[in-house]
């Protein structure tokens, strides 16, 4: 469109001048304007725009984070503990409980041995249980972090901690920090997309909030069922032709208004209406998994028209392929307390594993075969781990484990991360890390590093303070980088 191209040009000129004025006049300096989603999104009073360049050469262009909300048991999946099997059913030594806070454990609990069968896989010899048979075949592409730990032992605070570096609400999510820091390569799609299966995380939409960063950095929830993005579809009776015509007229009137009042903000609005129109086509396109060949759909195990984890994995690949910066998946159903059928580390956890095993393996394989894994960081994990102590609330034979902030396993793959590698060791019963422990802030620092961002320099001034994703902590995990 003539108008929009012109508007963009004028806008770009205006931006560079405004940028100059802002940074030189207010002395807040040091940052450049984000060209996020194409045109300029900033009305005149936005205090500090984003930065659009990495601090150093990035390894990853994209991130896909698979979050198993509720916290999967490391003891049944990756952290093989034969010693724990030996003391199965014995009372927990009180020394292990001293000074510890738990969500539910009380009194004197018994120890619970692993409920799955472990074997070693691949040339790296990684231990994976029979709960994840498909994933076991790709372990040579993966780096395990086995001594993860966090500060929080309840779901919501731990989830906030994982994504915002703080257990409280109000801070920006990791995906928001990343789009704030880097912008996004594809102007026609949101830079930070969230996909949900089985109900999503317990802490709700706040988890992908942009916090004090401007709302454009907020995660946009996309769905494979119903309207893919809120307000994306035209109202009844308005088809694409009418929408196109009305946007043309709206923009022409806005242009006339601009001629009269000379407010450059109008030009920004003109370009945003063009982008909105493009999103109306580009988002449904990318969300349409029917376009994939059958063998790919079978590889992931997708189900048309549903918000399944498998669909979301395939969508994640499509989104990354189209240039989306940060794709966040949440799958619910991993909180294995043993409070009832389907909620234990036996049958329940096995079911959840079956639900994700094929799709997450397919995602890794698919990214690899397309060469996308080299520029995409794939991360898998939960908000914390689970205790080696048994939780048996019902006394009815449903075996469960309580929350454990001291040890859990995550894995990463792709973009600059070592392959077939395992980092960190927990004690003999998998209760706490004893070697190469990785704190959540360290993980965050490392993710940003792979994207070319220095976690100490990616800051935003709010309430008189420069905030960071990693608060005042975080160390890069150098040992896992190639």
């Amino acid at each position, binding site marked *: 469109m003539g108008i929009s191209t012109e508007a963009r040009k004028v806008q770009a000129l205006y931006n560079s001048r405004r940028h100059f*004025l802002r940074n030189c006049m207010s*002395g807040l300096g040091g940052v450049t304007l984000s060209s996020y*989603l194409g045109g300029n*999104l*900033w*009305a005149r*009073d*936005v*205090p500090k725009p984003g930065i659009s360049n990495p601090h150093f050469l990035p390894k990853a262009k994209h991130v896909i984070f698979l979050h198993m909300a509720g916290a999967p048991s490391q003891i049944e999946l990756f952290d093989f503990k034969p010693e724990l099997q030996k003391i199965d059913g014995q009372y927990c030594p009180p020394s292990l409980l001293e000074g510890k*806070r738990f*969500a*539910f454990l009380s009194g004197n609990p018994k120890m619970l041995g692993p409920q799955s069968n472990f074997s070693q896989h691949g040339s790296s010899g990684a231990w994976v249980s029979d709960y994840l048979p498909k994933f076991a075949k790709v372990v040579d592409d993966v780096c395990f972090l086995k001594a993860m730990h966090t500060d929080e032992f*309840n*779901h*919501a*605070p731990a989830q906030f901690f994982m994504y915002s570096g703080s257990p*409280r*609400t*109000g801070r920006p999510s990791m995906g928001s920090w990343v789009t704030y820091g880097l912008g996004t390569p594809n102007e026609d799609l949101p830079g930070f997309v969230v996909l949900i299966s089985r109900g999503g995380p*317990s802490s*709700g939409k*706040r988890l992908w909030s942009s916090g004090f960063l*401007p*709302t*454009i950095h*907020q995660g*946009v929830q996309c769905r494979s069922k119903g309207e893919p*993005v*809120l*307000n994306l579809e*035209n109202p009844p*009776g*308005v*088809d694409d*032709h009418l*929408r196109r*015509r*009305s*946007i043309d*007229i*709206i923009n*022409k*009137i*806005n242009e*006339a208004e601009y001629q009269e009042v*000379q*407010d450059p*903000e109008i030009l920004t*609005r003109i370009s*945003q*209406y063009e982008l*909105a129109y493009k*999103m*109306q086509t580009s988002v449904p396109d990318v969300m349409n998994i029917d376009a994939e060949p059958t063998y790919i759909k079978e590889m992931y195990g997708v189900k048309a028209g549903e918000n399944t984890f498998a669909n979301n994995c395939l969508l994640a690949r499509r989104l990354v392929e189209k240039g989306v910066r940060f794709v966040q998946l949440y799958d619910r159903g991993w909180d294995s307390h043993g*409070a*009832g059928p389907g909620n234990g580390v036996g049958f329940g956890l096995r079911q959840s594993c079956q639900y994700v095993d094929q799709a997450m393996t397919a995602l890794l394989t698919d990214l690899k075969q397309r060469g996308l894994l080299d520029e995409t960081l794939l991360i898998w994990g939960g908000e914390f781990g689970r205790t080696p102590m048994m939780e048996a*609330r019902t*006394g009815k034979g449903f075996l469960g484990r309580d929350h454990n902030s001291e040890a859990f396993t995550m894995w990463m793959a792709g973009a600059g991360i070592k392959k077939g590698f395992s980092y960190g060791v927990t004690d003999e019963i998998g209760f706490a890390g004893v070697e190469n422990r990785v704190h959540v802030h360290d993980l965050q620092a490392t993710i940003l590093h792979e994207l070319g961002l220095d976690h100490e320099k990616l800051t935003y001034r709010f*309430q*008189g303070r420069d905030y960071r994703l990693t608060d005042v902590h975080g160390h890069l995990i150098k040992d896992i980088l190639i």
Partner: protein
Amino acid sequence: MISAELRYGIFLAVLLVACEGLHQEEISFNNEIRPILNKHCLRCHGGVRANGNLSFLFEEDAFGETESGLQAIIPGSHRESQLYQRIVHEDPELRMPLDNKPLPPEDIKLIARWIDQGAKWEKHWAYVPPDESIVPPQTKISGVENPIDQFVFARLEESDLMPAPPADPATLMRRLYLDLTGLPPTVQQIDAFLADDDPGAYERLVDRLLSSAHFGERWASMWLDLARYADTKGYEKDSNRSIWKYRDWVINAFNSDKPYDKFSIEQLAGDLITPPSRDRLIATAFHRNSISNDEGGTDDEEFRVASVIERVATTYEVWQGTTMACVQCHSHPYDPFRQKDFYTSMAFFNNASDSDIYNEQPKFYHFDDHDTLEIKEIIRWINTRVDSTERVDFNSFLYQQREQLLYNLGHRVVEAEEFNQSSPLIELIWPDLDMLWQVQDSSWIRFDRVDLNNVEQIGFRTATPLDFAGSISIHLDDPKSEKIGEVKVTKTGSWDRWQGTKPAKNHLFKEFIARIKPVPGEHDVYFRFWIGDTYIQHLFYLDQIIYYEKQPARHKYGRELNEKLNALSSFSSLTTPIIQELPDERSRETFIYNRGSWLTPTAKVAAGLPGIFNEKDKSIEDRLAFAKWLVSTQNPLTSRVAVNRFWAQIFGTGLVETMEEFGSQGAEPSHPELLDWLAVHFSNDLKWRMKALIRLLVTSATYRQAAIADSIKLEIDPENRLLSRGTRTRLSAEQIRDQILAVSDLLDRKLGGPSVIFPELNIPESNIPGWADQSVNSRYRRTLYAFWVRTDPFPAMMTFDTPDRTICVSHRVRTNTPMQALNLLNDRTYFEASTAIANRILHDEDELSQQIELAYRMVMGRSITSTKLELLSTLYSDTINHLQAETPENVSDSDEEVKLKGLTMVANALLNLDEFVVKG
């Protein structure tokens, strides 16, 4: 050998420098030296780090002895001052700033001269009270309406700018309506105003709008961001919170023009003013809007402390424009606040009795207007028929009267969820939190100081479908003491999905009665819950606890009185969480927390003001005194911060752009003298009356300018900080939705009341509390009444930059995004509004051009230009042509339906225009 010429040259240079030193004007620490120190020195010699025991934040530290035993600044001699020696040091390892380029020579010169002139220290301007002697300057520019214009025009003159011409009356009127009431004028209102030729028509309109009931709604929106008002509690559970009475209090406070000093004191300390009043107690809910955590396994004390810390930070941000969040961990990096200052301030707030418990006590209990009349009547009726010792006096609040009367007559029913304390693993059932569920084995609840004299039985109204669900034991003063009674809870009925679904019907509940050992006196009573023979996730639901006395007074009276008593007991109350001070004997001590962590308390502190304010008055010891000090003449900031907020609402940007930050990291005021003059005028002359202040702002000529830029204005004043034209800022999220509903005449203008469940909020049925307004008829109420869920806020509002209300936000950013375009283009409610406009114009006018002219006037308040009319006519005919091309058999252009569709597209376009979403 130095040549004579060179020697002479050196001599001259030295002479020049020396003369410069003698004759230079005095150097201002604030204007010239502090910025250098802030930029280059505070990182290592500030509030976070004071390397070498030197900090430039506080006068006493800057002039004190450093680690090396030397003094950094020796007034009068820059050569002897370490500060000077180190910035000019030849050795890069000793030169300051360390590991950095040396300071620019002109900065070094300034510092040297400042030291030589005596190194006079100044407080930052924000901590010095505004100058009361400022007189509005003279200006040659004509058209001054009030003193604001004198300041603004004089500043424009300095920059060789002229103000813009006055806005056309219809545009100005729309601006004024939106600013004062948040709603645009109707076509009739515009016509009436344009027809009023009498002098003072504009001022009369201002006065009319200031007295409109919608004034309070519009300004409450601003304040509710600061108050972080929401209808849920935050964190993971995000349970519902009934606190909408506070929102109505704010609306009423603006409407009744409550002076800002009273407005402030009541919200911060209304509970400490005697005698207590319902309104003043509800005002204290300001600080009960802090988030609280109902999640299992959390430590209530941790989250109580978190709330108190948040209240301190919020108080300083709202009234002082000062960010204190960083001071909880360490001294302020850039402003003169020591870490201790945070905790002495915290001590003012630390004695509030609320403690993050589930039922949000303390609460103010009240009844709706209809019930109030009936209850008063019943109490009066009973009171005249019972013994004098059993009567109630009418001085207390109605709820207390009812409770007292029921108690006096031995009718003692207690809601189980109103416990004073509980073990973990006790939860309240959603969405109303009106009974216990998730009662787990060996968990307990405690009621404080229960009168057990003459009590011989205790009943428990419970529900469960399990045969033997569990038992309840009763203990005094300690949950592990010997039980004084016990009762089994068995099957009361069956219903679907009993876990988490509360029994809807009364007959599903049964009362189980425990006989207790008689014990005299008042006791803290513990009820403990024990597993039965079946257990699935939880034991049973517990709704009420009933104390049975041996000979309750009610038995003396006949059936009629007892029936009245039952009726009296059955009225349910509304509740609002409030602030109440703990009694002296239970008051809490306040400690400095190491690095802000509540688990590591260090030194104990007493309540007091931050050091920078504390020079005169050390007698401020409680929250009420603190609140009064905030709005006293001793406080340098409150009035400035307040006038700046109102200014920003009216003119788009604050005189100080950083509304949340007036300290040394804040922006310099665009018009410092105007800020101070306004601050003094507001507190002294206007006696803190907010309406008078707003009136002053909107009756200025500055406000009435047209919002039209030209190349000169864009060059010299690109962001309109000098106010060389009218303000053109995007409307707030609330204003945008309200405006769409108003111009389409869908708006329901009802004032106040419970928060409303709009369909577009998509709140699941099971999450909607009984007190919320769910009526379909309320869907077009104003946006500020939307039921606000913190974890899932109103999507369209978030798209237009509303904060999520988790914490206090002074300053909404204004973005301009494609998501906003999608919202305005496609939102179903907004499209309904387009159809409503189309219907109206189709009905009222015959010709297309008249229809479009009318629509434009309804939407924009002014007349349409020919260009815009032509473009919209094209959209109309394109739409009709397209519809005919798509389905020629069904469509003819005389068809009303088709016309309506065409006009709907026109209206939809109007609601998407830039000029519609900005205040022009």
